[in-house]
Protein backbone atom coordinates (compact mmCIF):
# COMPACT_ATOMS: atom_id res chain seq x y z
CA UNK A 1 0.00 0.00 0.00
CA UNK A 2 1.24 3.47 -0.75
CA UNK A 3 2.46 5.65 2.11
CA UNK A 4 1.35 8.86 0.42
CA UNK A 5 -2.22 7.92 1.15
CA UNK A 6 -1.88 9.50 4.60
CA UNK A 7 -0.88 12.91 3.21
CA UNK A 8 -3.36 13.21 0.33
CA UNK A 9 -7.10 13.44 0.59
CA UNK A 10 -8.54 9.93 0.83
CA UNK A 11 -10.01 8.81 -2.47
CA UNK A 12 -13.61 7.71 -2.39
CA UNK A 13 -13.82 3.95 -2.60
CA UNK A 14 -16.55 2.14 -4.47
CA UNK A 15 -17.26 -1.54 -4.39
CA UNK A 16 -20.60 -2.50 -5.88
CA UNK A 17 -22.10 0.72 -7.18
CA UNK A 18 -25.58 1.61 -6.09
CA UNK A 19 -27.85 3.63 -8.39
CA UNK A 20 -27.67 6.62 -6.02
CA UNK A 21 -23.86 6.70 -6.31
CA UNK A 22 -23.69 6.80 -10.11
CA UNK A 23 -23.34 10.57 -10.36
CA UNK A 24 -20.49 10.75 -7.81
CA UNK A 25 -18.54 8.03 -9.53
CA UNK A 26 -16.21 9.19 -12.28
CA UNK A 27 -15.71 6.43 -14.83
CA UNK A 28 -12.45 6.34 -16.78
CA UNK A 29 -12.83 6.83 -20.58
CA UNK A 30 -12.97 3.07 -21.39
CA UNK A 31 -15.75 2.72 -18.81
CA UNK A 32 -17.67 5.62 -20.37
CA UNK A 33 -17.35 4.08 -23.84
CA UNK A 34 -18.56 0.78 -22.39
CA UNK A 35 -21.69 2.06 -20.65
CA UNK A 36 -22.53 4.29 -23.62
CA UNK A 37 -22.14 1.28 -25.91
CA UNK A 38 -24.76 -0.48 -23.81
CA UNK A 39 -27.06 2.56 -23.56
CA UNK A 40 -26.85 3.27 -27.29
CA UNK A 41 -27.57 -0.37 -28.10
CA UNK A 42 -30.62 -0.37 -25.84
CA UNK A 43 -31.82 2.90 -27.42
CA UNK A 44 -31.49 1.41 -30.90
CA UNK A 45 -33.42 -1.68 -29.79
CA UNK A 46 -36.22 0.50 -28.38
CA UNK A 47 -36.30 2.56 -31.59
CA UNK A 48 -36.58 -0.55 -33.76
CA UNK A 49 -40.36 -0.37 -34.38
CA UNK A 50 -40.10 3.28 -35.36
CA UNK A 51 -37.15 2.67 -37.69
CA UNK A 52 -38.86 -0.31 -39.36
CA UNK A 53 -41.98 1.80 -39.79
CA UNK A 54 -39.87 4.51 -41.47
CA UNK A 55 -38.34 1.89 -43.76
CA UNK A 56 -41.82 0.60 -44.55
CA UNK A 57 -43.03 4.11 -45.45
CA UNK A 58 -39.96 4.75 -47.58
CA UNK A 59 -40.43 1.60 -49.67
CA UNK A 60 -44.17 0.94 -49.94
CA UNK A 61 -45.14 3.50 -52.58
CA UNK A 62 -44.43 6.95 -53.96
CA UNK A 63 -47.30 8.27 -51.85
CA UNK A 64 -45.95 6.81 -48.62
CA UNK A 65 -42.47 8.09 -49.59
CA UNK A 66 -43.89 11.61 -49.93
CA UNK A 67 -45.63 11.22 -46.57
CA UNK A 68 -42.32 10.18 -45.03
CA UNK A 69 -40.61 13.24 -46.53
CA UNK A 70 -43.24 15.52 -44.99
CA UNK A 71 -43.07 13.67 -41.65
CA UNK A 72 -39.27 13.87 -41.67
CA UNK A 73 -39.51 17.63 -42.09
CA UNK A 74 -40.72 18.06 -38.52
CA UNK A 75 -38.03 19.31 -36.15
CA UNK A 76 -38.94 16.78 -33.44
CA UNK A 77 -38.44 13.92 -35.91
CA UNK A 78 -35.13 15.46 -36.94
CA UNK A 79 -33.94 15.64 -33.33
CA UNK A 80 -34.96 12.02 -32.77
CA UNK A 81 -33.03 11.05 -35.91
CA UNK A 82 -29.94 12.95 -34.73
CA UNK A 83 -30.06 11.15 -31.36
CA UNK A 84 -30.42 7.79 -33.08
CA UNK A 85 -27.62 8.68 -35.50
CA UNK A 86 -25.44 9.35 -32.47
CA UNK A 87 -26.47 6.06 -30.88
CA UNK A 88 -25.74 4.17 -34.07
CA UNK A 89 -22.39 5.86 -34.78
CA UNK A 90 -21.18 5.46 -31.19
CA UNK A 91 -22.28 1.82 -31.15
CA UNK A 92 -20.52 1.14 -34.46
CA UNK A 93 -17.25 2.91 -33.62
CA UNK A 94 -17.05 1.50 -30.08
CA UNK A 95 -17.96 -1.91 -31.52
CA UNK A 96 -14.99 -1.78 -33.89
CA UNK A 97 -12.81 -0.97 -30.87
CA UNK A 98 -14.19 -4.04 -29.07
CA UNK A 99 -13.47 -6.26 -32.07
CA UNK A 100 -9.87 -5.02 -32.02
CA UNK A 101 -9.65 -5.66 -28.27
CA UNK A 102 -10.94 -9.20 -28.93
CA UNK A 103 -8.02 -9.62 -31.32
CA UNK A 104 -5.72 -8.46 -28.47
CA UNK A 105 -4.99 -5.15 -30.18
CA UNK A 106 -4.39 -2.35 -27.65
CA UNK A 107 -5.27 -4.18 -24.46
CA UNK A 108 -2.76 -2.48 -22.15
CA UNK A 109 -4.11 0.33 -20.03
CA UNK A 110 -2.59 3.30 -21.85
CA UNK A 111 -3.62 2.01 -25.27
CA UNK A 112 -7.13 1.18 -24.07
CA UNK A 113 -7.46 4.69 -22.68
CA UNK A 114 -6.33 6.40 -25.86
CA UNK A 115 -8.48 4.15 -28.07
CA UNK A 116 -11.47 5.00 -25.85
CA UNK A 117 -10.78 8.69 -26.44
CA UNK A 118 -10.33 7.94 -30.14
CA UNK A 119 -13.86 6.51 -30.22
CA UNK A 120 -15.18 9.97 -29.25
CA UNK A 121 -12.78 11.71 -31.63
CA UNK A 122 -14.32 9.70 -34.48
CA UNK A 123 -17.94 9.30 -33.41
CA UNK A 124 -18.69 12.88 -32.35
CA UNK A 125 -17.55 14.56 -35.63
CA UNK A 126 -19.43 11.87 -37.61
CA UNK A 127 -22.53 12.59 -35.51
CA UNK A 128 -22.11 16.31 -36.22
CA UNK A 129 -21.93 15.53 -39.95
CA UNK A 130 -25.07 13.39 -39.70
CA UNK A 131 -26.84 16.18 -37.78
CA UNK A 132 -25.92 18.76 -40.43
CA UNK A 133 -27.19 16.40 -43.12
CA UNK A 134 -30.45 15.70 -41.25
CA UNK A 135 -31.07 19.43 -40.77
CA UNK A 136 -30.41 20.01 -44.46
CA UNK A 137 -27.24 22.12 -44.17
CA UNK A 138 -25.76 20.15 -47.07
Amino acid at each position, binding site marked *: MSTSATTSKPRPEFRNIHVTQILQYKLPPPGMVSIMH*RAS*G*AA*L*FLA*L*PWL*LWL*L*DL*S*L*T*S*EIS*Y*ARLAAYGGHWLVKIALVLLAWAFIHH*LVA*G*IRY*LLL*DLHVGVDRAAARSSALAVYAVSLPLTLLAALRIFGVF
Partner: protein
Amino acid sequence: MAATPNTAGIGSRRIVVGAHHGVGNFLLQRLTAVVLAGYVLLLLARVFFGGPLGYDGWAGLFVPLWMKIATLLALLALFYHAWIGMRDIWMDYIKPTWVRLSLQTLTALWLVYCAVWSVQILWRV
Protein backbone atom coordinates in the same frame (compact mmCIF):
# COMPACT_ATOMS: atom_id res chain seq x y z
CA MET B 1 -14.00 -25.93 -15.46
CA ALA B 2 -14.50 -29.16 -13.56
CA ALA B 3 -18.00 -30.54 -13.61
CA THR B 4 -19.64 -30.20 -10.23
CA PRO B 5 -22.23 -32.77 -9.22
CA ASN B 6 -25.59 -31.11 -9.76
CA THR B 7 -27.69 -32.81 -7.14
CA ALA B 8 -30.29 -30.03 -6.97
CA GLY B 9 -30.57 -29.49 -10.70
CA ILE B 10 -33.13 -32.15 -11.49
CA GLY B 11 -36.90 -32.15 -11.52
CA SER B 12 -38.70 -29.26 -9.85
CA ARG B 13 -35.41 -27.98 -8.45
CA ARG B 14 -33.84 -27.71 -11.85
CA ILE B 15 -32.16 -24.34 -12.36
CA VAL B 16 -34.13 -22.75 -15.21
CA VAL B 17 -31.77 -19.85 -15.83
CA GLY B 18 -28.04 -19.61 -16.31
CA ALA B 19 -25.39 -20.21 -18.83
CA HIS B 20 -24.23 -22.61 -21.41
CA HIS B 21 -21.05 -20.59 -20.83
CA GLY B 22 -22.02 -18.27 -23.65
CA VAL B 23 -19.18 -18.96 -26.10
CA GLY B 24 -21.59 -19.51 -28.98
CA ASN B 25 -23.43 -16.26 -28.29
CA PHE B 26 -20.15 -14.43 -27.73
CA LEU B 27 -18.97 -15.49 -31.20
CA LEU B 28 -22.34 -14.83 -32.85
CA GLN B 29 -22.43 -11.34 -31.32
CA ARG B 30 -19.15 -10.58 -33.09
CA LEU B 31 -20.08 -12.34 -36.33
CA THR B 32 -23.39 -10.48 -36.62
CA ALA B 33 -21.58 -7.22 -35.81
CA VAL B 34 -19.19 -7.75 -38.73
CA VAL B 35 -22.09 -8.61 -41.07
CA LEU B 36 -23.92 -5.44 -40.00
CA ALA B 37 -20.88 -3.20 -40.41
CA GLY B 38 -20.31 -4.65 -43.90
CA TYR B 39 -23.93 -4.16 -44.92
CA VAL B 40 -24.03 -0.57 -43.64
CA LEU B 41 -20.90 0.28 -45.62
CA LEU B 42 -22.43 -1.30 -48.74
CA LEU B 43 -25.66 0.64 -48.34
CA LEU B 44 -23.92 3.94 -47.54
CA ALA B 45 -21.69 3.49 -50.59
CA ARG B 46 -24.71 2.94 -52.83
CA VAL B 47 -26.70 5.82 -51.34
CA PHE B 48 -23.90 8.40 -51.27
CA PHE B 49 -22.18 7.60 -54.55
CA GLY B 50 -25.30 6.84 -56.53
CA GLY B 51 -26.44 10.46 -56.86
CA PRO B 52 -29.76 11.81 -55.61
CA LEU B 53 -32.28 9.03 -55.20
CA GLY B 54 -35.93 9.97 -54.85
CA TYR B 55 -38.48 7.18 -54.47
CA ASP B 56 -37.57 5.35 -57.68
CA GLY B 57 -33.84 5.29 -56.95
CA TRP B 58 -34.30 4.30 -53.30
CA ALA B 59 -36.91 1.61 -53.85
CA GLY B 60 -34.99 0.50 -56.95
CA LEU B 61 -32.04 -0.44 -54.74
CA PHE B 62 -34.16 -3.16 -53.15
CA VAL B 63 -35.65 -4.60 -56.33
CA PRO B 64 -32.91 -7.14 -57.22
CA LEU B 65 -33.30 -10.43 -55.40
CA TRP B 66 -29.68 -10.41 -54.17
CA MET B 67 -30.24 -7.02 -52.50
CA LYS B 68 -33.44 -8.25 -50.83
CA ILE B 69 -31.60 -11.29 -49.52
CA ALA B 70 -28.56 -9.25 -48.42
CA THR B 71 -30.84 -6.81 -46.61
CA LEU B 72 -32.83 -9.60 -44.98
CA LEU B 73 -29.62 -11.32 -43.83
CA ALA B 74 -28.39 -8.02 -42.37
CA LEU B 75 -31.72 -7.48 -40.58
CA LEU B 76 -31.72 -11.04 -39.21
CA ALA B 77 -28.14 -10.42 -38.01
CA LEU B 78 -29.40 -7.21 -36.41
CA PHE B 79 -32.26 -8.98 -34.61
CA TYR B 80 -30.02 -11.74 -33.31
CA HIS B 81 -27.41 -9.16 -32.26
CA ALA B 82 -30.15 -7.23 -30.45
CA TRP B 83 -31.36 -10.44 -28.80
CA ILE B 84 -27.94 -11.23 -27.32
CA GLY B 85 -27.41 -7.63 -26.22
CA MET B 86 -30.83 -7.21 -24.62
CA ARG B 87 -30.56 -10.61 -22.94
CA ASP B 88 -27.24 -9.48 -21.42
CA ILE B 89 -28.90 -6.30 -20.16
CA TRP B 90 -31.86 -8.16 -18.63
CA MET B 91 -29.50 -10.71 -17.02
CA ASP B 92 -27.33 -7.95 -15.53
CA TYR B 93 -30.01 -5.72 -14.05
CA ILE B 94 -33.23 -7.69 -13.51
CA LYS B 95 -32.89 -9.93 -10.48
CA PRO B 96 -36.31 -11.60 -9.97
CA THR B 97 -36.28 -14.66 -12.22
CA TRP B 98 -39.89 -14.45 -13.37
CA VAL B 99 -39.55 -10.77 -14.36
CA ARG B 100 -36.31 -11.47 -16.21
CA LEU B 101 -37.71 -14.49 -18.05
CA SER B 102 -40.84 -12.52 -18.97
CA LEU B 103 -38.76 -9.66 -20.39
CA GLN B 104 -36.56 -12.10 -22.29
CA THR B 105 -39.61 -13.85 -23.71
CA LEU B 106 -41.20 -10.57 -24.80
CA THR B 107 -37.90 -9.48 -26.36
CA ALA B 108 -37.59 -12.71 -28.32
CA LEU B 109 -41.22 -12.61 -29.51
CA TRP B 110 -40.87 -8.97 -30.49
CA LEU B 111 -37.71 -9.64 -32.51
CA VAL B 112 -39.36 -12.54 -34.36
CA TYR B 113 -42.28 -10.20 -35.08
CA CYS B 114 -39.79 -7.67 -36.50
CA ALA B 115 -38.17 -10.37 -38.65
CA VAL B 116 -41.48 -11.33 -40.24
CA TRP B 117 -42.37 -7.67 -40.71
CA SER B 118 -39.01 -7.12 -42.45
CA VAL B 119 -39.78 -9.86 -44.95
CA GLN B 120 -43.08 -8.21 -45.75
CA ILE B 121 -41.51 -4.76 -46.16
CA LEU B 122 -38.77 -6.04 -48.45
CA TRP B 123 -40.88 -8.33 -50.63
CA ARG B 124 -43.48 -5.66 -51.30
CA VAL B 125 -40.96 -3.64 -53.29
